[in-house]
Structures are given as structure tokens and as C-alpha cells.
């Protein structure tokens, strides 16, 4: 039988203060990102901020910087230009601007005419355009808030019912930790907050909880078995070690598919899969170093038998 790990006996709980420091930094960055987003200073995607996206391709190869100077010269100073690798359209670009109209003219039309006049000998073919008014963004923000709230509450209640209140809180904290950490990393990378990113965050919330639940299940089982011998901390440590190879294996399979998605899924899913990759890594870390240590700390402060 293949085995990634022989039986391990690592003192995970003993490392908890280091982990708490590390997580604290992650959380600080993430919370800063969230505050910036609430203040409207985050890099909000077109979904939320409103704006125009134009995708198309040139007949001949073109220099990105030439295109950039043409577009910024056309009055779109904050345009983001992205080269896209596509199979049947080699010189493809996505141009995003945070305006829907420019001086009474539609931003798309203005962009098109700017590009067409700047490169008269190299035809630009429009593949798709996408315009979202800020009002849409506003309502999206609202429904998204509900989706996040409902799913987080649902998970909290479920864990509470299946385990106990403490575990429920700890698991929820760990889940929030993962979501916030990934948001922080995305903020640092200056990635846009889009609808797909929110989807990825919720999915990874569900996934990270899965990971945590497996560890909790084992702790509960071992507590029944070893209630009389050994203390709480040892039982938790032992449980984490027992499920460690499982934790690594399941994370590996999910990591495998999201990496594939990142590499082959195309532009549309790139940020989504990046968020999932980060989420799986952080989620695996947090199920070991955050979720269980919180229960341990709680237990140390007000001892009560883990149900």
C-alpha cells in the first residue's frame, strides 16, 4: 500500500500560538481589505461597480503597450487591458473600463471607434461586450450579502446541532478565517472583486468546513474511547494526526482539479480557480491549526466535557 505519511505524532496544538500569530496577520490583511471594499476603495469588478467590458481580437499581432496608450489616449485613463490566449483568435484582448457612458456616447462605441481609428491597418473584431450599470451592482451586492449570511448561518446551526455550540463557533470562526484570508490575499494581488470571486469564497467556505468537520468527528470519537486516560489536548493532537493523511489526500484531489481549472479553464474562470486554490490551502491549514486549537483554548478556560 502506498502511503504519503507513516504514522505521525506531531504536536499541532503546541504550535498554536505560532499559528495564531500567522492567522492574525492573515486576518488583519483580510479585514483591512474588507474595510477598504466597504469604503468603496477596493478593486471592485464590473459586476459590482458597473462599467463596460469589451473583448475582441486584432487581425494582426499588436503590442499591448500601443493598445494601452491608444485606449488611455481615448479618454479611458483607468482602462485595464488584458491579453487573452485563445485558440481560434490569436490577438485577443479584454478591455475593461469603469464607465458605461462617455460624454453622452456609449463607452463601448467610444472604445471601438478609438481603437479602429488608432489602428486603421489592423482590424479589431468585437467578440463580446458587457455593460453593467451601477444600479445592477447595488442589487447584486444586496443579494450577495444574503447568500453569504444564509449559508454561514446554515453551517453554524448545522455544526451546532451535530456537535456542540463551541465546535459550531470554532468551525465558523475557522471558515470565516479562510474566507477573509483569501480576500486579503486577493486584495494584495490587486484582483477584482467579482461575482465569481464571491462564488469561489462561498464554495471554499463549504469546503473548509468539510475539512474541519472530519477532524471534529475524529476528536469526538476519540474522546469517547479515551475519556478516562489522557487529557483533552493529547486527544485532539492524536485525532489530528490520525486523520492527517486523509486531510492531505482530500486536499490534494481538490487541489488537482482546481489547478487544472486554473491552467485550462480560460480567462473566465482564472480568478475563480485561483481563489479556490488559495482556499484549499488555507482551509487545510485552518482545519488543523485554527479550528481545533480554538476548542482547546476554550476548553482550557472553561472546562466542559466535549460532547
Amino acid at each position, binding site marked *: *500500500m*502506498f502511503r504519503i505519511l507513516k504514522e505521525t505524532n506531531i504536536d499541532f496544538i503546541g504550535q498554536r500560538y505560532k499559528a495564531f500569530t500567522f492567522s492574525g496577520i492573515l486576518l488583519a490583511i483580510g479585514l483591512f481589505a474588507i474595510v477598504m471594499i466597504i469604503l468603496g476603495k477596493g478593486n471592485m469588478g464590473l459586476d459590482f461597480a458597473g462599467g463596460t467590458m469589451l473583448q475582441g481580437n486584432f487581425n494582426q499581432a499588436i503590442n499591448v503597450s500601443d493598445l494601452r496608450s491608444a485606449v488611455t489616449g481615448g479618454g479611458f485613463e483607468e482602462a485595464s487591458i488584458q491579453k487573452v490566449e485563445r*485558440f*481560434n483568435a490569436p490577438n485577443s484582448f479584454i478591455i475593461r473600463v469603469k464607465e458605461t457612458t462617455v460624454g453622452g456616447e456609449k463607452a463601448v462605441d467610444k472604445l471601438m471607434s478609438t481603437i479602429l481609428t488608432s489602428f486603421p491597418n489592423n482590424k479589431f473584431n*468585437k*467578440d*463580446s*461586450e*458587457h*455593460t*453593467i*450599470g451601477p*444600479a*445592477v451592482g447595488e*442589487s447584486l451586492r*444586496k*443579494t450577495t450579502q*444574503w*447568500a*453569504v449570511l*444564509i*449559508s454561514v448561518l*446554515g*453551517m453554524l446551526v*448545522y*455544526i451546532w446541532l451535530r456537535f456542540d455550540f463551541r465546535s459550531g463557533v470554532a468551525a465558523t470562526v475557522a471558515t470565516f478565517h479562510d474566507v477573509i484570508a483569501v480576500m486579503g490575499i486577493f486584495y494584495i494581488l490587486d484582483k477584482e472583486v467579482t*461575482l*465569481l470571486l*464571491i*462564488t469561489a469564497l*462561498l*464554495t471554499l467556505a*463549504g*469546503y473548509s*468546513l*468539510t475539512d474541519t*468537520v*472530519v477532524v471534529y*468527528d475524529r476528536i469526538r*470519537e476519540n474522546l469517547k474511547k479515551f475519556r478516562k486516560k489522557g487529557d483533552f489536548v493529547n486527544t485532539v493532537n492524536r485525532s489530528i494526526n490520525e*486523520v492527517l*493523511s*486523509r486531510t492531505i*489526500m*482530500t486536499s*490534494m*484531489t*481538490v*487541489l488537482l*482539479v*482546481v489547478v*487544472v*481549472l486554473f*491552467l*485550462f*479553464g*480560460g480567462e*473566465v474562470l482564472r480568478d*475563480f480557480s485561483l481563489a*479556490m486554490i488559495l482556499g484549499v490551502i488555507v482551509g487545510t491549514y485552518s482545519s488543523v491549526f485554527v479550528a481545533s486549537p480554538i476548542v482547546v483554548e476554550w476548553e482550557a478556560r472553561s472546562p466542559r466535557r466535549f460532547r
Partner: protein
Amino acid sequence: MKGQTWRLAVTGIFIVMAFIGFWNTLRYWTLSGTDRQKMEEIRPGSAQELERKAMRLGLDLQGGLHVVLRVQMEKIEASARVDAVDRAIQVIRNRVDFTGVTEPVILKQGDDRIIVDLPGYTDAAQAENIIGQTAQLEFKLVESMENAGLILKKIDSIVVAAGKTGTESKVATAGAESKVKDSATTRDTSDVFGEMLKGDTGQVADTALSEGETPFTQYLEPFLYSSKNNTPWPGYVIAMRDRGLVERILAMPEVKRVIPEDVQFSWSTRTDIKAAQSVYYLYILKNKVQFLGKNLERIKLGRGQSQEHTVDFRLSGQSSAAFARLTGANIDKPLAIVIDNRVESAPFINSKIRNDGQITMGSSATIKDAQNLEIVLKAGALPAPVEIIEKNVIGPTLGSDSIRKGLISSIVGLIAVFLFVGIYYRLSGLIADIGLLFNIFFLLAIMAGLSATLTMPGIAGIILTIGISVDSNILIFERVREELRSGKTVRASIDAGYNRALLTIIDSHVTTLITAGALFIFGAGPIKGFAVSLFWGVTISLYTAVIITKMIFDIRKGYQSLSI
């Protein structure tokens, strides 16, 4: 043993059901162009029916149009607001149905928004015309030439006065096109003239100003004559490039002041070609609504005397009397047919019209224009004006590209997980792989059976399912390994592995299902597709990863060693 028979039977039933669910989609996807033709020959409409039953590709995969409309509640009375959105959806659905777009998605979002997805439809302008029109059909009389002449004279003098100031400052400062524009006192008009000087009409404007002629009316070439007595009516030809200029003049506050309250300037609905250039028509109408078009019945396309397209209609009982009175009193005068405040045409009334009427379309109107008008009239008027706040046109090239990427990542992801599990757990891993294949098969079958729409995020959901699905088997196998290490027999280890992992697996699935559920209920657009495939994928994996794989283990239960 009895349990085993049951599970086999249930699985068998599932497989048959999956094939049935998949059947239409499979047939549709493997249908070639000639097959399709043959099908249509044998039984017309059968190919379309099959298309409807098959799994649909989302907008992002096959291209199409995504429009978000906002119903402008503030523009209607409070009492009409209650079901305005629902009524608007009904009207839009009717209109879209008339166009023949298959499987449109028309949904209410929030309090005042409507999402319209038209897969395979990429003509944004046409779609805007069809779904965006309020289709308030009104009949209005055209203002008399004397009154119109007076108004135009006043406008001319205002424009000339404003132009003079503009010219004076121009004379004062040499070569001062920009200075003219900066002239603070006559900002509006000098802007207008600044523009004029730059444009093609610059020459004309210049001379016109210096000679003190009438710079406004010179853009208005009258065309609306009554052939009977050769009287002109205020309908004018405006070159397309001058439309902006004329609009700006009409928007000048001084000009607005001299236009009487009962008179309105109205543009034609579309451009026409006159003397090899594109032109608009501008009409001066009495803005009193003479007759509302909501009493029209039996609307159908027709042809006029000079073969131009017409939309014919019939009037019902009471309304026909009113229409007869209106037309009887205005014989030999033009009657403007106004849709959403733009003039469709202004034909002359030849005789009293009692029952059957005709809307003549301009000579430039295509059959498509006539059909559009027919559609919006048939489907009725929107209860409130709508505005298009989001528009997403996706070209088919983007679609085929996305399909390819989705397919590649699905296959690569599947192979990667397949190999990983197969190598790590050997024969048992292969059993998990079989479970995984069943999972994908059932998932596609359910989505096909529900006629769900496959989108790019949906494909992402399927791929993620591949990753999560084998998680259950990993949980089980790791457990089995532990049991084996503790010295249990193969048989006991497998049973214990499955039993003990089951609760954990259910726990982990429920948490993912909660997320998928929340995403489905509250998510919009792409998120929904993702939620659907994730939800079903995870649900099905409970069956395939736990029950099907256990079944395979049980079939080979005589074995004494386990390859894990």
C-alpha cells in the same frame, strides 16, 4: 444478500433512468446538419422539439444576448405599480415568443428588474427594439403650416441672434474657433456653432450667418405634401449628420420658450435614404392624443398601394366610432402614427375610416421593421417604460472557445484525479474511479433530464464535483486502512470503514449542500448554474461514492486480501 439485490436493482433503475434522461441530449449532440434536415423532412418541427428537450448550452457557451431591464416605476402612477413588473414580463415574453427565439429566459429580479436571456441571438439593436419599446401607440394630428411657420420663424430669429453674438466674437478675435466656444455669455449657442463650423456644413453656416439668413430652417427641407391640393405640411427632411445639431437647437432654453405647449417636435422612428444620403424626418405635431392604439385588433402585415410594408388592423365596437369621427373630420390631412413619441409615418386621411385601418411604414422600412411593429402591437404595450441597464452580447466565437476550454479542463481534471486515486489506492482506487464515472454520468443525465442550462461556471461546478466526489472514497479508504492496521480481517475492515466514515461523509456533504442551496436561492446568473451542478454533483456522489463502490466490494467479497 437481500440488501445487495435491492441495491443492484435500484442502481439498475437509476442507470436506465439516466439513459432516458440523457437520450434526447445525446441524440441532439450527435445530430449532423444533414440528419437534421432529414428529420425535418420526415416530420417538420421535430428537430426543434428535440433541441428543446436536450440540455441547453448557456449564453456563455453558445453566444447570445443577456439584457437586464429596469421598469421605471417612478414614471407611472402608484396604483399601477403593484404588478407592473409581472405584466411587463408577460408582454416581453409574448414579444420574444413572436420572434421565434428558442428557450429564452425571462426572469424577475428584485423589485423592478427583468432579466432577458436570448441564447443564440446576437442582434442587440433589434432586441432592444423589440423588448425595450413601450409600444404606446398614439394617433396625433400634424400642426398646420401657418402655425408651424410662425414657430419656425421665431426659432430662426433666436438662432440668428445667438449666431450673431458668436460671429461678432469670432470677428473680434482672429482664428478663434476655440474662442467662440469659450464665449461665456452665449455658451449654448456658440457650442452649437462651434460644432457647425467644424462639420461638413461649416461652409453653409458661415455664409448663412454673414448674410443674416435663416440658419435653422435651411436644414429643414419640407417633404410632406398633400398631392390632392399641393399643400405643404410641417414634415421635414434632416440629414442624419445634422440631427444632433437640430436637437441641440431645439433644446436651447430660448427655443423651448417659443414652442407653444400644444405643439411638439417629433422625429421619425428610423432613417431613410434621400438623394443618396441618410436622413431623418422631423414632424411638428399637435401633441394632443387623438386616439390611443390599445383598441387595435387582428393585427397583420400587409402591402400598401406602392408596395410599401403596412401593418393592418381592425378596430373594435366603440373605438371604431371614435376613429370614424376623427378621420371623418380630418380628411385630406395627415395623421401621425406615433409610437413611443416617435413618428412611424404620417399618411393622409383619404376617407372616413370606420373599422379597418392601416399603418403605412416608410419606404425605407424593411419587412423586419414591419414585423417588429406587428410584434409590439400584438403583444400589447408595456405597463411602464423600461430602460436597459445591462447588456451583454456574446459572440459565438467566444462560445466555441469556452466550450473547448471547459471540455479540456473537465477531461484533464478527470484523468488527473482518476490516475491519482487509482495509483494511490490501486484496485480499490479503481473502484472509486468507477464510482466517479457513475457520478459524472448521473450528473449529466439529471441536468439533461431537467433541461438545465450548461454554463461555464456550471462546468466549473462539475469539475469541482469530480474533486469532492472522490473525497468520500478517500475518507472510507483511509478508514479501511486504519482498520486493517489494527488487525481486522479484510471483510470487517471494509464494513467498518464504510460504516464509520458514513456520518463524517454526510456531515461534509450537508455543509457543501447548504452553500450550494444559498448560492442557488440568492445567486444571480452564472452563480446559479454553478450552484445547480454543485448541488446535484454532491448529492449524487453520496450515492455513487458510498453505495455503488460498496456494492462492487461486496460482489468480490470472497477475496482474502485487499489491494488498497
